[in-house]
């Protein structure tokens, strides 16, 4: 018996989300009084042994198969299911990323067990108790997970990665899962670049200036674009703007748009609907520019300027030019 962590990796290199999964898995394993194992699927996985050991993993299972070079969600799940059959873990824990949740949904279907996506807390037991995220983080759900094996993913950046007190040297066990053509029917056959227009990527921008319904029209984004340009930032928008056809969906910040994490988010003519705020929880600071003084009572906004963005933004841009920015 064990707790099994499924790690996303790139040729054995694991990122922040995987170390969070390891820490979360280690806490769950400790509470259950069981060892923590980890599994990596795809080429180069054994290189994850060293970082996994730092988080207390005792055994690293490395699955390799010629069909697992390109991403193939059902095949990954089949490999994990095969390991589950041998290892009988009490829980499998993975990342609540798009891909992590996809693989776990396949695992849930293969094992006919419930799957709790995007947990932030979990307590083991015959019935596990979890707290999971709803509405893109605007609401939490306490739930009970039934079934002999618990399938849980961890909401990204909701648990601090903490290495174990003493690093272990995990045993490495290799296996080649048995995969059928059906398991491999859905796999990435090509990766294409998208045109970002040479601009700053919304997801990684240090400054994002967004407009909402208050921008008034597609042309109303001119002062927003000007300010974003001066600050070397990206332009965003709310869902209302996308639906109105003023901006492309690629600019949309929100639960069903892009999740951003800038140093400062300048939200202009945006009221702060939950759909929108779910996309900017990663922003360090939020400045609202709005004609409605009510924005000052919105908990998510750290700063506010009360006024029309069409007057306030040009004044900020002029001030920045005075300070020498171009």
């Amino acid at each position: 018996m064990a707790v099994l962590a499924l790690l996303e990796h790139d040729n054995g290199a694991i990122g922040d989300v995987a170390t969070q999964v390891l820490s979360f898995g280690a806490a769950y394993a400790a509470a259950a009084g069981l060892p923590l194992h980890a599994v990596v699927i795809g080429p180069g996985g054994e290189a994850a042994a060293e970082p996994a050991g730092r988080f207390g993993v005792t055994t690293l299972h490395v699955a390799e198969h010629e069909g697992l070079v390109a991403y193939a969600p059902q095949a990954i799940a089949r490999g994990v299911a095969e390991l589950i059959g041998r290892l009988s873990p009490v829980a499998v824990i993975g990342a609540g990323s798009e891909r992590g949740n996809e693989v776990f949904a396949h695992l849930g279907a293969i094992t006919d067990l419930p799957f709790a996506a995007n947990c932030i807390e979990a307590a083991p037991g015959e019935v596990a108790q979890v707290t999971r995220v709803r509405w893109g983080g605007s609401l939490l759900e306490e739930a009970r997970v039934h079934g002999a094996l618990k399938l849980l993913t961890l909401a990204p950046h909701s648990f601090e990665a903490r290495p174990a007190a003493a690093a272990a040297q995990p045993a490495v066990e290799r296996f080649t899962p048995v995969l059928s053509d059906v398991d491999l029917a859905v796999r990435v056959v090509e990766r294409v670049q998208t045109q970002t227009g040479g601009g700053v990527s919304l997801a990684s921008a240090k400054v994002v200036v967004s407009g909402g319904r208050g921008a008034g029209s597609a042309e109303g984004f001119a002062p927003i674009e000007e300010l974003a340009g001066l600050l070397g930032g990206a332009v965003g928008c709310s869902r209302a703007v996308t639906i109105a056809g003023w901006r492309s969906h690629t600019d949309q910040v929100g639960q069903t748009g892009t999740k951003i994490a800038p140093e400062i988010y300048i939200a202009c003519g945006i009221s702060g609907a939950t759909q929108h705020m779910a996309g900017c929880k990663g922003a360090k600071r939020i400045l609202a520019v709005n004609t409605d003084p009510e924005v000052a009572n919105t908990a998510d906004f750290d700063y506010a300027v009360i006024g029309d963005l069409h007057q306030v933004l040009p004044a900020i841009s002029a001030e920045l030019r005075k300070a020498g920015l171009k």
Partner: protein
Amino acid sequence: MNILVCIKRVPVTGGRIVLRDDEQAIETRHLGFAISPHEECGVEEAVRLVEQNGGESTVLTLGPPEAEEQIRDAMAVGINRGILLETSEEWDAQATAAAIVAAVEEERAAGTEYDLIFFGNESADTGNYQVGIRVAHALGRPCVTGLKKIELVGGRARCEQEIDDQRDVYDVALPAVVTVKEGLNLPRYPSVPGRLRAKKKPIDRKTPNPRPAALERVRLKLPPGEDKPTEILGHGPEAAPAVVELLRQIGVI
């Protein structure tokens, strides 16, 4: 070509979520409802594919009797018929998938085989990320998720999924299940004649067999709020120097 689109009725929450006293659901007395955003794009795509290729589109939802509104919304933009699986409360993902599989099998027995079944990548409210995949497994069909583009060529679907700033391409044979994301298309507004036609389109109402929730909701709660006041930097254009000072303090200029 026969296309099924599975949708979910969700409240339009606005600025702040308020819970019912029993903590089992959102207080929706003062809220409107809509089709969950990703699925709205599934509806639009199904209508476009039938416009291009001929055939028929069906919309399915599992929810309360009032979910007829969302079925009519889908019909108003061109979906041909509806299936409403009536339930009195929220079901977990496994029970939902099982009910949808049973409905698809009944359709097959009645002579309708779906070439393509659309789902949203995840619902706006519960965000379980799994109903479409579970249905695909039960029906023995491939499932591609998170689509931002789909093209049908010679009995196959070429699907594009956004990953970071790139797109991953999948190529699967039909029949298939796909889950889509907002941004796949820009859904059209329903026209007045469309709304009128929708009222006359057929809806099959069924009562699916319940099963005990294996992921059992205990209670809902609001995340701990950061109880910090908003600092007003000023009013109108006169606030500009204070904003620039803030930008300087935090080191972005």
